[in-house]
């Protein structure tokens, strides 16, 4: 079970993810609504894992991922993506993302992915 930072620009998605992760026994240590906030919160909270939306205002998920990886090369980041964003996610994986989940979220898949990345 891990301490997780949720990054998404909509409260709706964050709530959805929060409930899924919470049901899996994880602790949600923080939420961020854009990339800049994500980087700040990562630094402050040092979570075990970050779920990262791709399309966000200010700083998008890929840039935020790169920033986080710069700070902590061991950071575990799972991208949240939608069908049609494969290229972006590929870029994210090349930049150090450890996994991804596809919207609409399916609770078992999300938990599986998170568990796997936490164990890696």
């Amino acid at each position: 079970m891990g301490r997780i930072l949720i990054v998404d620009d909509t409260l709706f998605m964050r709530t959805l993810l929060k409930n899924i992760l919470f049901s899996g026994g994880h602790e949600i240590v923080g939420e961020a609504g854009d990339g800049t906030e994500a980087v700040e919160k990562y630094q402050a909270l040092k979570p075990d894992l970050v779920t990262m939306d791709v399309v966000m205002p200010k700083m998008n998920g890929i840039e935020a991922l790169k920033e986080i990886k710069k700070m902590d090369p061991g950071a575990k980041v799972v991208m949240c993506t939608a069908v049609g964003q494969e290229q972006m996610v590929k870029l994210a994986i090349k930049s150090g993302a450890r996994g991804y989940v596809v919207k609409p979220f399916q609770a078992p898949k999300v938990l599986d992915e998170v568990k796997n990345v936490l164990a890696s």
Partner: protein
Amino acid sequence: MVESEFEQYRGLFVAESRENHEVIVRNLLILEGGEDPGAIDEIFRAAHTLKGASASMGFDTMEHLCHAMEDVFQAIRNKDLSVTQDLMDLLLSTVDIIEEQIDEIEEGGDGSSINVDEMVESLRRATGNGGPAETPLKTEVPKTTSLPAIETLNGNPHYTIRITIDESSLMKDVRALIAIGNLEQFGTIITSDPPLLVLEDEDAPFDGVLTIVMESDAGAEALRSAASGTEVSEVFIEEMGHGDTPAERSTIPDLPGYQMIISVEEESAMKGLRACISLERLEECGTILSCDPPREAVEDGLFDSNFQLTIATGQDPEELKKAAMVPEIRSVDIIPLKSQEPAGKKASSAPQSREQAPKKKDESKSREIKNLRVDIQQLDRMMNLIEDLVINRGRLKQIAEKNKMKEMDEAISMIDRSVSDLQVLMMDIRMIPLNHIFNRLPRVVRDTAHYDGKDVNFVMEGGETELDRSVMDGLNDPLLHLIRNAVNHGIESPERRREIGKPEKGLVQLSARRDRDNVIIELRDDGAGINVEKVKAKAIERGILSPDMADQLTKEDAISYLFHPGFSTAETITDISGRGVGLDVVRGAIESLKGTIRVTSHEGKGSTFELLLPPTMAIVEVMIVRLNNRRIAIPISAIVEVASMRRENIHRIGTQDSILLRDEVLPLHMLEEMFGRSDSTEILIVVQYNKVKCCIAVDLVEGQQEVVVKPLSRIIGVIRGISGITILGDGHVVPVLDVNTMV
């Protein structure tokens, strides 16, 4: 999503979807005014979010539509599609449908009763008919080449590789990066043109031709296959001879090799990405020597259910299996290779970053959430509870006074302060900036002007002015109506404006400001103004004004006939502003908010509608009077003066009692039919509404206080003359007079 789970998100979904909808509309209008990359980015993000959220909630119809719309925005963003008037109309109608769907979803539906097929089809046609991709402007790119660290060169042959990416590729730079990534597997890249940094920068232009100089011992054919891939139209390779440093193959340790067969679950949504993760993780364990199908194809998902690779690694098969087994990977089979040619660049000797610094549990977890969304019904309930508190505080006060309990007085004064603060706070919480409804208006102006063939510049200011939510709710419709009127009937056609020497673009200005206890909203247009004679003629034609009276009317009085029920000066009822609803409805709506509306107009120069609104409806300062031993509350805002009554000044004119007060004859209301006959009326309360005065006779004035006005319950219905009730400190229920209906 499971039904029960699903309901808890509905409110949130609706609220955020509305926000995103608004973002789209607002930015579409910006976009219509001219190209704006910021606006299209905003739109794209909002549309993308809408799509994702509706998919998550299982609102398939909405997702379907959002998806088609997102594609159009994507095409606009990529400059494959230019924004024309027709496209803008199509997009605006699309967001209208989305809004309808949100409405339906809010009411408990799933948005599927609205047929979107036609719209989706139109959107698809729009993207399909979009002209060929304009090639991005080729601006000067810094041709800096990065020098490799000398020690990475092993004296292997050098190659120049020129990769041409397909013209039709939507993400040429990503393709180039993938090619570089693949080539890196086979050696060391010495220079890249354009440099990696330029390729990684989304905004930097890239014309699709990438030139790489690299050192490799893998041979030209291996490099060719690494560099080719989806959307790569041409790969040109030239061998340049050996590097300066002598070959030192011995620096690469001989590692055992393995063949791995990895199969991915069939229902995996993006199996290419799964493979990508698996490969990335394997790469942390060792060096991937080959991949079949080629790695890039695998990462693009171009394989059936499994792919094969060979890897040189110092780790045991179990470790490899663990690394490769990411979610949705069905199985990993590992076969050790008998003898392995050490090849490729140096294999990573040890798994990196296994030992991360022990994670400190942060004691001061800053889990602050600065904003909360609250269901408005909960706020309403809270408001009610606070109102009850206010009432009971009054009762307590009276009890303490009656029983002369000093100690209790103190406690009550403490409660008093808390309750007052609570009340003020609650009022603040309920306040919403006017932008809430203002934001929709540019769209309304645009549509109305468009429909009418008018050219209008719409300016808004003061949107940050706050109003109670309940006032806001009632303001939307009348405001819409007034704005449509201004464009429809106020602003002249561009031709007409040119004729009379006005700028072709009409001006409609909406402003809001706080003025002491009121919020003033002003709508000004520089259109034709109100033709007083036309108003009079129409009033006469409608039989609501006699010709004799018409001659005596002042300009202002004549204009006030605009608000007469059923009056409309518009020659034709248009689809947009007509609908047979007149200004009387607007006035009624504003009055029900305890507000007033005023018009000033100069023919040929334009009109101004001024709405005066209380920021909140719930708390009103009233004068408590007694009549026939009953108490009545009269809103202070309506009272002009209090005078003593002289019976000899009362005259009966027709069926109406009147009274002479100083030099004015005012209608007098005894309110007998409401409160019974009283013989001891001595006081005159002069009230005024819309500049018309009248008097109410009462027995005595008891005092003045702030009260919470509660509406009459539905069971009682509407009682003429009474706008609501209030409960005083002693628990008595007192009616609040509705002055508007008296004058």
